């Protein structure tokens, strides 16, 4: 694979996707410390919000240690070069949250929908595109669930609503490099040349690096990862590892590798409540194609109702659940416990 000379933008997820394994309890102070260290390391873009995006504070997904507004305000004002993004899932957050995040100083808004439901992002992308200079990104989750043609049709819809960048998101960490290649290559061929293309991976099948490289080779220029892999499931593409690989392959990221490694080791790893690794349940997410943030919910319900978390996750995959259906997990566990006479 020859990627030499390619320029990409890496986007760190620790302070958003990393909120899932932290049950949204990262404090404002911790966020500021980490964000400043990332700024110092030259990471160009970081995401900051509740794990489920703006407005995610809820019984269903978990109440965070601070509000999105508090996190964003505190982080944005401390950044010298690093830009800050916020995630918004229509159905959870609204355009009111979007406006608030813009007022806090974000430079990028990412509007995320399930891969077949891009049309629910019209309201939000259209509004975002009206802000002068706001980097407007469409983000299609669980992209393994549909084929390349159908996926690209949805990406184009987001492009039409005003996204200047669209993402193929492997929320379940299910994809293998060939899946990424065919989707990204078709998207690159069909989207407008000026539209940027991104890939967001999860490491549930240990494919984070390989999939991200496949994405870059097929034409993606934005890659999500998180230092030390802090993210849902087995985490996101471990960013310091990806940066080292990019460096060896001659891909230009503009990030100081050793400083990034130090942030991962010195700040992120000590923050973890449990090791972010491919344990049996995280592997099941990738294997069965299940939304990565279901992991801890399945573990908790399994413990509460005396079930196997793997059984719960496999069933959630069989029922083709999508991102946001965390409420289904306790309901399903109750059904399974009843059926087993527990």
């Amino acid at each position: 694979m020859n990627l030499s000379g390619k320029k990409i933008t890496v986007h760190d997820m620790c302070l958003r996707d990393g909120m899932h394994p932290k049950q949204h309890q990262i404090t404002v102070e911790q966020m500021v410390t980490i964000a400043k260290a990332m700024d110092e390391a030259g990471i160009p873009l970081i995401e900051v919000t509740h794990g489920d995006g703006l407005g995610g504070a809820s019984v269903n997904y978990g109440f965070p240690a601070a509000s999105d507004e508090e996190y964003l305000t505190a982080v944005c004002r401390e950044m010298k070069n690093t830009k800050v993004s916020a995630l918004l899932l229509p159905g959870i957050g609204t355009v009111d949250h979007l406006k608030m995040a813009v007022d806090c100083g974000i430079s990028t808004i990412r509007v995320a929908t399930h891969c077949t439901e891009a049309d629910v992002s019209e309201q939000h992308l259209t509004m975002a595109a009206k802000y002068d200079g706001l980097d407007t990104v469409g983000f299609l989750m669980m992209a393994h669930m549909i084929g390349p043609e159908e996926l690209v049709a949805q990406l184009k819809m987001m492009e039409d609503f005003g996204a200047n960048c669209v993402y193929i998101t492997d929320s379940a960490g299910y994809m293998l490099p060939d899946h990424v290649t065919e989707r990204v290559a078709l998207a690159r061929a069909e989207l407008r040349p000026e539209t940027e293309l991104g890939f967001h991976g999860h490491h549930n099948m240990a494919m984070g690096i390989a999939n991200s490289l496949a994405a870059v080779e097929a034409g993606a220029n934005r890659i999500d990862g998180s230092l030390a892999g802090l993210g849902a499931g087995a985490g996101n593409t471990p960013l310091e590892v990806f940066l080292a690989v990019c460096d060896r392959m001659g891909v230009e990221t503009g990030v100081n590798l050793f400083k990034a490694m130090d942030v991962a080791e010195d700040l992120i790893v000590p923050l973890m409540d449990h090791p972010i690794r491919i344990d049996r349940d995280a592997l099941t997410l990738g294997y069965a194609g299940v939304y990565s943030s279901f992991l801890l919910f399945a573990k908790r319900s399994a413990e509460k109702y005396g079930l196997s978390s793997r059984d719960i996750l496999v069933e959630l995959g069989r029922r083709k659940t999508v991102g946001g259906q965390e409420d289904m997990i306790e309901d399903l566990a109750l059904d399974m416990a009843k059926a087993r006479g527990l």
Partner: protein
Amino acid sequence: MSKKVKAAIIGPGNIGTDLLMKAMRSELIEPVWMVGVVADSPGLARAAEAGLKTTAEGVDGMLPTMRADGVQICFDATSAYVHAENSRKVNEQGAVMIDLTPAAIGPFCVPPVNLAQAVDAKAMNVNMVTCGGQATIPMVAAVSRVQAVSYGEIVATVSSKSAGPGTRKNIDEFTRTTASGIEKVGGAKSGKAIIVINPAEPPLIMRDTIHCLTEDEPDQAAITKSVHEMVAEVQKYVPGYVLKNGPVFDGKRVSIYMEVEGLGDFLPKYAGNLDIMTAAGLRTAEMYAQEILAGNFVPTAA
């Protein structure tokens, strides 16, 4: 009862047509007009076949004769954007407007919770909140009538096929209007609504999760009894309204898991979200009709 109140349905789409099928079985409502904007719409053709007067000229096409035709109740099954105009026009002709859009210009009505008050207030416009609101607010109210609820949150999961273009274009209206209904009708001090659209095939039946946080320790027995009673109330007009699990108690959290299967009149059974809207709209109209027929209420232009 032989006498019925005449009604018009504005919007001959899926909702309007399903509503028509239900209204034709009603002992209190007689649908006489179907109003559309597209001349060759299949919905208008079906209504004409059923013997209704039809127009493709919008509400304006019905206005000149609606009073002479005896229309006293109108249902708006179009969109929030045109609702206010529609409502003003039919109100001027002395007809009550039952709003199935999320426009929410009139007071909210969730039949088993506040239908009686809505009708007592003799409002000329009542709003049916949202599909998610109709499915979940009764459960919030079932908890809040037992003890104070500081926070009510609902998650409505609907099949992709049952989420129409109107809902998709303005999904924020769903979350805002439903959250407001959780507070104003459900009785929670603060409300939050989440909607998830799932494209699985075969389409999933609408499911709803209701989480309430009570101010004090929940009275488990009283809440459980209240929830079962409320489910029975909703089942009077939506037989497929089923308590799947719960109430589950965890500290001050009360969680209720529902499934809503529709009657399958015009809309498929999985679209319980749409069925509960049309059924609630009709039930509201029937209550108004009772008052009108009893001579307690004469709808008049404001």
